[in-house]
Protein backbone atom coordinates (compact mmCIF):
# COMPACT_ATOMS: atom_id res chain seq x y z
CA UNK A 1 0.00 0.00 0.00
CA UNK A 2 1.28 3.45 -0.90
CA UNK A 3 1.21 6.53 1.36
CA UNK A 4 -1.50 8.12 -0.83
CA UNK A 5 -3.69 5.03 -0.48
CA UNK A 6 -3.19 4.97 3.29
CA UNK A 7 -4.14 8.67 3.45
CA UNK A 8 -7.29 7.98 1.40
CA UNK A 9 -8.35 5.09 3.64
CA UNK A 10 -7.70 7.20 6.75
CA UNK A 11 -9.83 9.99 5.28
CA UNK A 12 -12.60 7.53 4.45
CA UNK A 13 -12.53 6.10 7.99
CA UNK A 14 -12.82 9.61 9.44
CA UNK A 15 -15.76 10.31 7.11
CA UNK A 16 -17.53 7.12 8.25
CA UNK A 17 -16.95 7.99 11.93
CA UNK A 18 -18.29 11.52 11.41
CA UNK A 19 -21.42 10.11 9.71
CA UNK A 20 -22.01 7.67 12.60
CA UNK A 21 -21.54 10.48 15.15
CA UNK A 22 -24.03 12.67 13.26
CA UNK A 23 -26.59 9.83 13.15
CA UNK A 24 -26.08 9.46 16.92
CA UNK A 25 -26.81 13.17 17.43
CA UNK A 26 -29.98 12.96 15.29
CA UNK A 27 -31.34 10.01 17.27
CA UNK A 28 -30.33 11.43 20.65
CA UNK A 29 -32.20 14.65 19.82
CA UNK A 30 -35.15 12.60 18.56
CA UNK A 31 -35.40 10.86 21.94
CA UNK A 32 -35.56 14.22 23.66
CA UNK A 33 -37.85 16.20 21.35
CA UNK A 34 -40.05 13.65 19.57
CA UNK A 35 -40.54 11.06 22.28
CA UNK A 36 -38.54 8.28 20.71
CA UNK A 37 -36.08 7.66 17.92
CA UNK A 38 -35.46 4.04 18.81
CA UNK A 39 -36.95 1.19 16.84
CA UNK A 40 -38.95 -0.57 19.53
CA UNK A 41 -41.70 -3.18 19.82
CA UNK A 42 -44.03 -0.35 20.82
CA UNK A 43 -43.21 1.56 17.64
CA UNK A 44 -43.71 -1.53 15.46
CA UNK A 45 -47.08 -2.07 17.14
CA UNK A 46 -48.06 1.53 16.34
CA UNK A 47 -47.00 1.08 12.70
CA UNK A 48 -49.54 -1.70 12.05
CA UNK A 49 -52.45 0.39 13.29
CA UNK A 50 -54.59 2.82 11.28
CA UNK A 51 -53.07 4.92 8.46
CA UNK A 52 -53.36 7.97 10.70
CA UNK A 53 -51.03 6.37 13.21
CA UNK A 54 -48.66 5.40 10.44
CA UNK A 55 -48.24 9.11 9.66
CA UNK A 56 -45.47 8.81 12.24
CA UNK A 57 -43.48 7.27 9.38
CA UNK A 58 -43.04 10.83 8.05
CA UNK A 59 -40.92 11.54 11.11
CA UNK A 60 -38.70 8.53 10.33
CA UNK A 61 -38.42 9.71 6.75
CA UNK A 62 -37.19 13.06 8.13
CA UNK A 63 -34.43 11.34 10.15
CA UNK A 64 -33.41 9.20 7.17
CA UNK A 65 -33.44 12.26 4.90
CA UNK A 66 -31.21 14.21 7.26
CA UNK A 67 -28.76 11.37 7.86
CA UNK A 68 -28.56 10.38 4.17
CA UNK A 69 -28.02 14.03 3.20
CA UNK A 70 -25.22 14.45 5.72
CA UNK A 71 -23.70 11.14 4.59
CA UNK A 72 -23.57 12.34 0.98
CA UNK A 73 -22.05 15.70 2.02
CA UNK A 74 -19.37 14.03 4.19
CA UNK A 75 -18.41 11.71 1.34
CA UNK A 76 -18.53 14.58 -1.20
CA UNK A 77 -16.06 16.61 0.88
CA UNK A 78 -13.56 13.73 0.61
CA UNK A 79 -14.47 12.87 -2.98
CA UNK A 80 -13.68 16.42 -4.21
CA UNK A 81 -10.19 16.04 -2.77
CA UNK A 82 -9.53 12.51 -4.08
CA UNK A 83 -10.73 13.34 -7.61
CA UNK A 84 -8.60 16.51 -7.59
CA UNK A 85 -5.49 14.27 -7.44
CA UNK A 86 -6.10 13.86 -11.19
CA UNK A 87 -5.17 17.46 -11.73
CA UNK A 88 -1.82 17.09 -9.91
CA UNK A 89 -0.64 13.61 -10.91
CA UNK A 90 -2.43 11.04 -13.08
CA UNK A 91 -0.25 8.30 -11.57
CA UNK A 92 -1.22 9.13 -7.96
CA UNK A 93 -4.88 9.48 -9.00
CA UNK A 94 -4.87 6.02 -10.63
CA UNK A 95 -3.10 4.55 -7.61
CA UNK A 96 -5.64 5.94 -5.11
CA UNK A 97 -8.62 5.43 -7.37
CA UNK A 98 -7.89 1.72 -7.86
CA UNK A 99 -9.15 1.32 -4.27
CA UNK A 100 -12.68 2.21 -5.44
CA UNK A 101 -12.73 -1.10 -7.34
CA UNK A 102 -11.99 -3.25 -4.26
CA UNK A 103 -14.88 -5.34 -2.82
CA UNK A 104 -15.04 -3.36 0.46
CA UNK A 105 -15.22 0.00 -1.32
CA UNK A 106 -17.81 -1.44 -3.72
CA UNK A 107 -19.96 -2.32 -0.70
CA UNK A 108 -19.50 1.26 0.56
CA UNK A 109 -20.57 2.53 -2.87
CA UNK A 110 -23.73 0.39 -2.65
CA UNK A 111 -24.58 2.05 0.66
CA UNK A 112 -23.90 5.44 -0.87
CA UNK A 113 -26.19 4.67 -3.83
CA UNK A 114 -29.00 3.78 -1.41
CA UNK A 115 -28.40 7.07 0.45
CA UNK A 116 -28.44 9.09 -2.80
CA UNK A 117 -31.56 7.31 -4.11
CA UNK A 118 -33.52 7.73 -0.88
CA UNK A 119 -32.48 11.39 -0.51
CA UNK A 120 -33.36 12.12 -4.16
CA UNK A 121 -36.69 10.32 -4.34
CA UNK A 122 -37.82 11.45 -0.88
CA UNK A 123 -36.72 14.98 -1.82
CA UNK A 124 -39.04 14.81 -4.84
CA UNK A 125 -41.79 13.62 -2.48
CA UNK A 126 -41.22 16.68 -0.29
CA UNK A 127 -41.53 18.89 -3.39
CA UNK A 128 -44.79 17.10 -4.25
CA UNK A 129 -46.07 17.59 -0.69
CA UNK A 130 -45.60 21.36 -1.09
CA UNK A 131 -46.69 21.82 -4.67
CA UNK A 132 -49.60 19.37 -4.77
CA UNK A 133 -50.48 20.30 -1.17
CA UNK A 134 -50.63 16.66 -0.05
CA UNK A 135 -52.13 15.89 3.33
CA UNK A 136 -50.58 13.60 5.91
CA UNK A 137 -52.33 10.43 4.70
CA UNK A 138 -51.41 11.03 1.03
CA UNK A 139 -47.80 11.93 1.81
CA UNK A 140 -47.45 8.76 3.89
CA UNK A 141 -48.81 6.72 0.98
CA UNK A 142 -46.30 8.37 -1.36
CA UNK A 143 -43.58 7.52 1.17
CA UNK A 144 -44.41 3.84 0.58
CA UNK A 145 -43.74 4.40 -3.12
CA UNK A 146 -40.48 6.19 -2.25
CA UNK A 147 -39.30 3.17 -0.26
CA UNK A 148 -40.26 0.68 -2.99
CA UNK A 149 -38.48 2.76 -5.68
CA UNK A 150 -35.40 3.26 -3.49
CA UNK A 151 -35.06 -0.44 -2.71
CA UNK A 152 -35.73 -1.58 -6.29
CA UNK A 153 -33.40 0.90 -8.01
CA UNK A 154 -30.83 0.47 -5.21
CA UNK A 155 -30.80 -3.32 -5.61
CA UNK A 156 -30.42 -2.91 -9.37
CA UNK A 157 -27.51 -0.47 -8.94
CA UNK A 158 -25.87 -2.82 -6.40
CA UNK A 159 -26.10 -5.64 -8.90
CA UNK A 160 -24.16 -3.52 -11.40
CA UNK A 161 -21.60 -2.42 -8.79
CA UNK A 162 -20.99 -5.86 -7.22
CA UNK A 163 -21.10 -7.90 -10.45
CA UNK A 164 -17.32 -7.67 -11.23
CA UNK A 165 -16.50 -9.12 -7.77
CA UNK A 166 -18.19 -12.45 -8.50
Amino acid at each position, binding site marked *: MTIAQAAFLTGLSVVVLIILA*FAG*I*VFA*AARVSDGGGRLSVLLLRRMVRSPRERAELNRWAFYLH*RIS*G*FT*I*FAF*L*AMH*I*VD*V*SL*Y*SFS*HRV*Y*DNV*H*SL*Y*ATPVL*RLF*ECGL*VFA*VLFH*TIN*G*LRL*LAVDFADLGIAASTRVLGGVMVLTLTLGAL*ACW*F*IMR*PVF
Partner: protein
Amino acid sequence: MSATLEPEAAERATTANARRRLLGYLAVRVTGLLLAVLVIGHLVVTHVVTDVAATDAGFIARRWSSALWLIWDWLMLASALGHAAAGVSVAVDDYARKPVTRRRLHRILVVLVVALFVFGSYVIAKDVYS
Protein backbone atom coordinates in the same frame (compact mmCIF):
# COMPACT_ATOMS: atom_id res chain seq x y z
CA MET B 1 -34.01 39.68 21.14
CA SER B 2 -36.56 41.35 18.88
CA ALA B 3 -38.35 42.55 22.01
CA THR B 4 -35.50 45.00 22.67
CA LEU B 5 -35.73 46.50 19.14
CA GLU B 6 -37.90 49.46 18.19
CA PRO B 7 -41.17 48.25 16.55
CA GLU B 8 -40.13 49.47 13.08
CA ALA B 9 -36.67 47.95 13.33
CA ALA B 10 -38.17 44.70 14.60
CA GLU B 11 -40.52 44.61 11.62
CA ARG B 12 -37.65 45.25 9.21
CA ALA B 13 -35.62 42.47 10.86
CA THR B 14 -38.56 40.07 10.62
CA THR B 15 -39.12 40.92 6.95
CA ALA B 16 -35.41 40.47 6.17
CA ASN B 17 -35.42 37.18 8.04
CA ALA B 18 -38.51 35.98 6.19
CA ARG B 19 -36.97 36.96 2.85
CA ARG B 20 -33.76 35.11 3.71
CA ARG B 21 -35.69 32.01 4.67
CA LEU B 22 -37.77 32.15 1.50
CA LEU B 23 -34.58 32.44 -0.57
CA GLY B 24 -33.09 29.49 1.32
CA TYR B 25 -36.27 27.46 0.78
CA LEU B 26 -36.20 28.15 -2.96
CA ALA B 27 -32.43 27.56 -3.28
CA VAL B 28 -32.67 24.13 -1.64
CA ARG B 29 -35.51 23.10 -3.96
CA VAL B 30 -33.98 24.45 -7.18
CA THR B 31 -30.54 22.91 -6.47
CA GLY B 32 -32.28 19.73 -5.31
CA LEU B 33 -34.11 19.36 -8.64
CA LEU B 34 -30.85 20.03 -10.52
CA LEU B 35 -28.98 17.49 -8.40
CA ALA B 36 -31.65 14.83 -8.96
CA VAL B 37 -30.58 14.87 -12.63
CA LEU B 38 -26.85 15.64 -12.21
CA VAL B 39 -26.01 13.17 -9.42
CA ILE B 40 -28.10 10.27 -10.72
CA GLY B 41 -26.53 10.87 -14.15
CA HIS B 42 -23.06 10.92 -12.55
CA LEU B 43 -23.71 7.60 -10.79
CA VAL B 44 -25.11 5.97 -13.94
CA VAL B 45 -22.01 7.04 -15.91
CA THR B 46 -19.44 6.00 -13.25
CA HIS B 47 -21.10 2.79 -11.95
CA VAL B 48 -23.52 1.40 -14.53
CA VAL B 49 -22.42 2.42 -18.05
CA THR B 50 -18.74 2.26 -17.01
CA ASP B 51 -17.50 -0.04 -14.24
CA VAL B 52 -15.84 1.91 -11.42
CA ALA B 53 -12.58 0.00 -12.10
CA ALA B 54 -12.42 1.70 -15.51
CA THR B 55 -12.86 5.26 -14.18
CA ASP B 56 -9.11 5.97 -14.30
CA ALA B 57 -7.29 9.16 -15.33
CA GLY B 58 -7.88 8.32 -19.00
CA PHE B 59 -11.64 8.19 -18.31
CA ILE B 60 -11.58 11.71 -16.82
CA ALA B 61 -9.37 12.98 -19.65
CA ARG B 62 -11.86 11.68 -22.24
CA ARG B 63 -14.84 13.07 -20.36
CA TRP B 64 -13.31 16.46 -19.65
CA SER B 65 -12.41 16.91 -23.31
CA SER B 66 -16.09 17.76 -23.79
CA ALA B 67 -17.56 21.04 -22.58
CA LEU B 68 -20.78 19.28 -21.60
CA TRP B 69 -19.08 17.22 -18.87
CA LEU B 70 -17.02 20.16 -17.63
CA ILE B 71 -20.20 22.19 -17.22
CA TRP B 72 -22.00 19.15 -15.77
CA ASP B 73 -19.30 18.58 -13.14
CA TRP B 74 -18.94 22.23 -12.21
CA LEU B 75 -22.72 22.69 -11.93
CA MET B 76 -22.87 19.54 -9.79
CA LEU B 77 -20.07 20.85 -7.56
CA ALA B 78 -21.73 24.25 -7.10
CA SER B 79 -25.27 23.02 -6.52
CA ALA B 80 -24.25 20.11 -4.26
CA LEU B 81 -22.18 22.40 -2.01
CA GLY B 82 -24.93 25.04 -1.90
CA HIS B 83 -27.58 22.42 -1.14
CA ALA B 84 -25.39 20.81 1.54
CA ALA B 85 -24.54 24.14 3.19
CA ALA B 86 -28.23 25.02 3.47
CA GLY B 87 -29.15 21.57 4.81
CA VAL B 88 -26.34 21.27 7.36
CA SER B 89 -26.97 24.84 8.51
CA VAL B 90 -30.56 23.88 9.43
CA ALA B 91 -29.25 20.83 11.30
CA VAL B 92 -26.79 23.07 13.20
CA ASP B 93 -29.69 25.34 14.22
CA ASP B 94 -31.61 22.27 15.43
CA TYR B 95 -28.89 20.58 17.46
CA ALA B 96 -26.47 23.28 18.68
CA ARG B 97 -28.13 24.87 21.69
CA LYS B 98 -25.60 27.52 22.72
CA PRO B 99 -25.42 30.59 20.43
CA VAL B 100 -21.60 30.49 20.62
CA THR B 101 -21.45 26.88 19.42
CA ARG B 102 -23.99 27.63 16.73
CA ARG B 103 -22.01 30.63 15.41
CA ARG B 104 -18.78 28.65 15.51
CA LEU B 105 -20.28 25.67 13.63
CA HIS B 106 -21.83 27.99 11.03
CA ARG B 107 -18.46 29.65 10.50
CA ILE B 108 -16.69 26.27 10.12
CA LEU B 109 -19.39 25.17 7.65
CA VAL B 110 -19.04 28.32 5.53
CA VAL B 111 -15.22 28.07 5.48
CA LEU B 112 -15.35 24.35 4.56
CA VAL B 113 -17.92 24.79 1.79
CA VAL B 114 -16.25 27.88 0.29
CA ALA B 115 -12.83 26.15 0.41
CA LEU B 116 -14.21 23.04 -1.33
CA PHE B 117 -15.95 25.19 -3.95
CA VAL B 118 -12.86 27.29 -4.70
CA PHE B 119 -10.62 24.19 -4.78
CA GLY B 120 -12.99 22.19 -6.99
CA SER B 121 -13.50 25.11 -9.37
CA TYR B 122 -9.71 25.59 -9.54
CA VAL B 123 -9.21 21.92 -10.51
CA ILE B 124 -11.81 22.20 -13.29
CA ALA B 125 -10.48 25.60 -14.49
CA LYS B 126 -6.92 24.24 -14.51
CA ASP B 127 -8.06 21.49 -16.87
CA VAL B 128 -9.83 23.98 -19.15
CA TYR B 129 -6.79 26.27 -19.47
CA SER B 130 -4.14 23.56 -19.87
